[in-house]
């Protein structure tokens, strides 16, 4: 049953989706935007949860304000914004949506833009499932939406352009950050020069990055480079974090282990794009570990290989909120062009400044990527007893035994149940693939992934059931 039709349906109300909504409406499209969270703004511009009323925007931070601006712009433009609404399935441009507590419904759109963002790269090491170990994004969500600090003695371990952002933000909320471990090298003079060269016109990005480091230095938070967490220890909760120096492949160097007492360990080794919907839609992908793994193939208007489905933002390879905003706009212009709401000339003209900015950011991003390339050692920390699939409690040893005769993730999954739990492999699938790659040789990207299936989010049967759908009755028998 189809009960609504839009020119453009946008999945994801982060910077990419919000910017796209405003742009598309201004080009004359009827737009509906859905986000499964109770508030819009996505990961970075996450707004305080219901129950918090912001009286002094400046006090809650620049990110709140920028997020509010994007949301207001989309609202003012007249886009239909639906919070607490998940996209569960997609086929062509038909999308199944469900609002929390309501029944699922199917909507038709002439164009669909998928802007689902990214999630933290899960890293498996002994102790990663202990209470008190959380992802950087999880910690950030806690602070931003609940105004709750995750612990009293916080160790942060991570890498990448945002690695310093998390602890700096936590400091900003008054958290006690004991130690920051960055797996990459300390930025050298040459890196800084390279960044500066690439950063022309990207001053806001550079200002952010420099600002985070300055904040940590000013607050005297110890900042140690080329070190990663190798395990977390404690009785029923993190009590100590063990860390070590690593070589350029991120493999721990023997004899360099140290311990630090902590009740909280935040882990942020980069992000994975959330690709479930794009995979379900049937889009083509290429593989780029530095962009977070599978990266959807797009053309110059950010159209995927599936007709009338485009993609923007971190869900297409992690690139940050500035890129996400411009990509969202560009995808909206592409949709307007395809729906003939804009002439080719008009679309090209409006896209020109976006393209210029995106090109500059791409240069900046490439420079950053060189600095923060993920080392394969990150996948080799688990010991045989380490639980890899936490939903089904499957250990690395079990996975290794099951990969004896096969290099197929799906076979290992079926032999062990790993990846079949509530999270459907979101957390463990890459680690399983890495186990296979390690044993059989070959790269992570060359391994087949588990088949994409609806629903992309767990959903109550009561919300899904549709008694109007007839089963075919009897099974036909040829006489």
């Amino acid at each position, binding site marked *: 049953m189809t009960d609504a039709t839009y020119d453009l349906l946008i999945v994801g109300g982060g910077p990419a989706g919000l910017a796209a909504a405003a742009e598309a409406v201004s080009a004359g499209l009827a737009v509906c935007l859905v986000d499964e969270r109770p508030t819009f703004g996505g990961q970075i511009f996450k707004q305080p949860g219901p129950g918090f009323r912001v009286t002094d925007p400046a006090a809650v931070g620049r990110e709140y304000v920028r997020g509010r601006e994007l949301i207001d712009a989309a609202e003012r433009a007249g886009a239909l914004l639906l919070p607490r609404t998940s996209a569960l399935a997609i*086929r062509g441009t038909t999308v199944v949506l469900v609002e929390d507590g309501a029944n699922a419904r199917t909507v038709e759109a002439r164009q669909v833009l998928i802007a689902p963002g990214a999630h933290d790269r899960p890293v498996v090491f002994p102790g990663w499932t202990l209470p008190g170990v959380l992802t950087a994004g999880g910690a950030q969500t806690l602070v931003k939406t609940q105004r709750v600090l995750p612990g009293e003695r916080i160790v942060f371990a991570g890498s990448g352009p945002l690695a310093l952002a998390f602890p700096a933000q936590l400091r900003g909320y008054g958290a006690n950050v004991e130690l920051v471990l960055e797996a990459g090298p300390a930025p050298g003079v040459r890196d800084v020069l390279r960044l500066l060269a690439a950063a022309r016109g990207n001053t806001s990005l550079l200002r952010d990055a420099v600002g985070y480091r300055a904040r940590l230095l000013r607050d005297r938070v110890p900042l140690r480079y080329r070190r990663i967490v190798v395990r977390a220890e404690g009785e029923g909760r993190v009590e100590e974090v063990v860390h070590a120096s690593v070589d350029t492949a991120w493999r721990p160097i023997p004899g360099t282990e140290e311990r630090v007492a902590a009740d909280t360990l935040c882990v942020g080794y980069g992000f994975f794009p959330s690709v479930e919907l794009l995979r379900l839609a049937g889009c083509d992908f290429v593989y780029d570990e530095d962009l977070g793994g599978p990266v959807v193939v797009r053309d110059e208007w950010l159209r995927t290989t599936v007709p009338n489905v485009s993609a923007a933002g971190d869900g297409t390879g992690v690139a940050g909120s500035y890129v996400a905003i411009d990509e969202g706009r560009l995808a909206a212009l592409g949709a307007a062009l395809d729906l003939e709401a804009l002439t080719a000339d008009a679309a090209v003209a409006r896209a020109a400044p976006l393209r210029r900015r995106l090109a500059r950011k791409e240069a900046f991003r490439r420079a950053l990527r060189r600095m923060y390339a993920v080392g394969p050692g990150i996948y080799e920390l688990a010991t045989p007893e380490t639980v890899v699939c936490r939903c089904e409690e499957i250990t690395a040893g079990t996975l290794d035994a099951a990969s004896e005769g096969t290099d197929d993730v799906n076979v290992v999954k079926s032999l062990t149940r790993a990846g079949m739990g509530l999270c459907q492999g979101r957390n463990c699938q890459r680690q399983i693939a890495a186990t296979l790659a390690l044993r059989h040789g070959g790269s992570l990207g060359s391994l087949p992934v588990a088949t994409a299936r609806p629903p992309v989010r767990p959903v109550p049967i009561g919300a899904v059931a549709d008694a109007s759908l007839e089963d075919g009755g009897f099974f036909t028998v040829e006489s």
Partner: protein
Amino acid sequence: MRAEPAPAWPFARELRAPLPESTDVLIIGGGLAGTALAYYLARAGVECVLVERAELNREASGTNAGSFHFQIALHQLTALETGNVRERLQTEVRLHAEAAEVWKTLERELAGSLEIHITGGLMVAETPDEFRLLHEKRELEEEAGLETHVLEGEELRAFAPYLADDLLGATWCPDEGHANPMLAAPLFAARAAEAGAELRTHAEVTRVEVDPDGGARRFAVTTAAVRVHAHRVVNATGAWANEVCGLVGLRLPIRAEGLHLNVTEPRERVLEPMVQHIGRRLTLKQATNGTFIIGGGWPANPEPAPARFSTTWESTAGNVAVAVRVLPLLADVKIVRTWSGVMAFTADLAPLVGESARLPGFHTLIATTGFTLSPLLAQLLAEELATGRGTIPPQYSIDRDPAGQPTTT
């Protein structure tokens, strides 16, 4: 949930080893049918090689719902009556009763867990016509030697208080239950290898040559660019059986169909029996890990190979609607995934097992409810291959359908 001991699959090391040059029985297909046959043959001392084009247990046998179908079910009927197919049903129920005995001892036989739950099965009725059918089929089942009972209204509510309270009744079959399809074929494969069978993956059969004068090695089967000479061949390729039959100019009365399944988050155990519906497509059970598995024959969409058939939202929403109608507590249980598998439906729904009279030495092993029946049918076929004498019902002859008669090569 449990921490698993590492499963040991030492045989897996051999799966990619070079193929032997010749064998007595060459089995094509590494699903439950093929692996069970390899086990029973090897145990009887018959030399055999199994070749699988991809990985073991990745098609119907590893993706099915794991139900033991012993009662007469919707997929065996053509209308809300049994009269028109009485004789066929009798034969099948007799076979089911035998299959029930096999499953009861299978874990002991294979020395490993298959997560078998023989918890009984209920088949519910919503309408007066359906309810009448329950009585009809129970009689038939009794005659064929399968124990079932009809539970009416209040009785059913006392017996299974968790079911919807307006159901008219159900039949209860104490022998029914379910097992874990992800364990069955792999365990058969492991035990087959231990008993001396050779199993090979990534060995697709692309050519079968027959030399009528070839004596003890009359078949030359080409797989993965290697030729294996075999005395006898068994086609156990399920939904793809006609592709292999086509290689020798035979055609079977079967069609391939994609089916849809749903699984939920785990919940505390509430549902012991397996539940089916006599008039609507439903099978419902709670697996060992507490998840509910919901199926019953809803369709999945064909996709061009090698992609797996896609699951549709219509099948998801329609299938779970029947489930929650019967078991209302499912309303707030979350569905986490759907998947599909492709299986062979034989034209008259009965198995196709044994040797072709048209092409001596060429056998098939195919059943519609092949999870339930493959261990038993493999046993029967192994017995025939090992001793030359068998007890396979003549109704299952692979030459039985006129439309299925071979063309000549």
